[in-house]
């Protein structure tokens, strides 16, 4: 199994989720995060104090898939999340040693 982690722009979440459903993914987990990268932040003003905001809101999406799905899923995310603009984000792939479904105790591919 592989875990695919994607850092994407928040407004792309719905599209990506739909793309993943279409690609056969039945579960995923997301969390709010902030990213620092090539994409420029902005400056905020508070009574003359300038405040540089380097971290931009991103969605961190995690999905564990069977080895044979991994490439297709990566491609699906890359396509759905793409806006051709700096800051679109990254996808990282990791090996998963094991997976367990808490409710049933199922393990491995059956659990995801």
């Amino acid at each position: 199994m592989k875990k695919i982690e994607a850092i994407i722009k928040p407004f792309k979440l719905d599209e990506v989720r739909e793309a993943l459903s279409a690609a056969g993914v039945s579960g995923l987990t997301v969390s709010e995060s902030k990213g620092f990268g090539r994409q420029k932040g902005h400056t905020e003003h508070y009574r003359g104090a300038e405040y540089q905001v380097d971290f931009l809101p991103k969605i961190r999406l995690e999905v564990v898939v069977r080895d044979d799905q991994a490439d297709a899923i990566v491609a699906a995310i890359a396509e759905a999340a793409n806006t051709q603009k700096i800051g679109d984000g990254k996808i990282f792939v990791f090996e998963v040693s094991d997976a367990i479904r808490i409710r049933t105790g199922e393990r491995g591919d059956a659990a995801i």
Partner: protein
Amino acid sequence: MRNRISTAGAGRLVAAAAALFAAGTASAEDVLSAGDTAWMMTSTALVLMMTLPGLALFYGGLVRTKNVLSILMQCLISAGMMGVLWVVVGYSLAFGDGNAFVGDFSKVMLNHATPDTLAGTIPEYVFVMFQGMFAIITPALMIGAFAERMRFGPYLAFITIWLVAVYCPLAHMVWGGGILSSWGAIDFAGGLVVHMSSGFSAMAAALFLGPRAGHGKQPMPPHNLPMVVIGASLLWVGWFGFNAGSELAADGTAGLAFLTTSTATSTAVLTWVLVEWLHQGKSTVLGAATAAVAGLVSITPACASVTPGGAILVGFGGALICYVFVMIVKPKAGYDDSLDVFGVHGIGGAWGALATALFIAPFALPEGMTQGGQILIQLKSIGFTALFAPVATLVILVALRAVFGSLRPTEEDEALGLDQSEHSESAYIEAA
């Protein structure tokens, strides 16, 4: 319409004092007016609303999440402690006969009064409460200067002593028939007594306590700007009680004070927003909210002395001067007047006290006084307040440091935030 200003030398203060001293002796004034009483009870409620929740939200939104409760608590306990203290002894020290500098103990516990006792056309009890709400908000205004870095115990001791040693004497000198009143100072609703006194004292406290850890290095933006805007809005609404209520009657002068209050404030908001746009490229909500308070402070002493046109000038000047202090002078000077109490209340209050004479309407100039003469009186009064308040404050703080050791939390506690370290509470909890 009974125009108190034109008949009463330096304005309301003398009228109020006269009314009080006359209490008990029969006179044409000595009849209760339900209309005036209705307005004054309303005004009193409005002035409490300025502190709770107005100021509490205004300051509370400006600090970081970890200190918002400490601000709310400081406002609450001002209403608690000052509210009791005022009835027990404060009112007597401010409005008892006494001497040129302070009242006496003749009105301790209000034992001299009954529901039938009048102050002018209203029950003295209502006058006591109206003034009591001023005694609650004035110390609370200082909170902003030492926000996020004063322990609760020392704070409570500080405002308690400050009320007795700074506020009551000053109120007596200006409104209770004391020395500034005899100079002829005009301070209709508290430019000297409330705003300069708190603003300059706050500055002294900010310098005495030193800056917050990380000040100047680390950004400390407001944690909740909508909260700041609600606070500023309620201050604006409540200020009608503060200013138009200071007439102690529902008459034409109250109407004037009401109109100039709102007009100056609107002008200040508009001015600040446009100036910030030109100067910074964008105008901010925080700027607009700050401007509203700056406008309100500026018009406070002047509200019954200027025409609508004069109010526009007062508000315009107040916005400009406070803008310069908050946006340019403070960052350059480097002191940590955290929420700009000095820049808004100290400076705005002084400007207003001066503007009172600069833009005084003919009908408001005391009989036999020239405008130039009034300007000098105002300057002298401003100078007096600018010295008296911060010096007395420093004396109090030095004494308190001797008692408490440090007035500040430990470095660790300051980093953790006062909400946890002082009150063991969190403002916001996302429970499961």
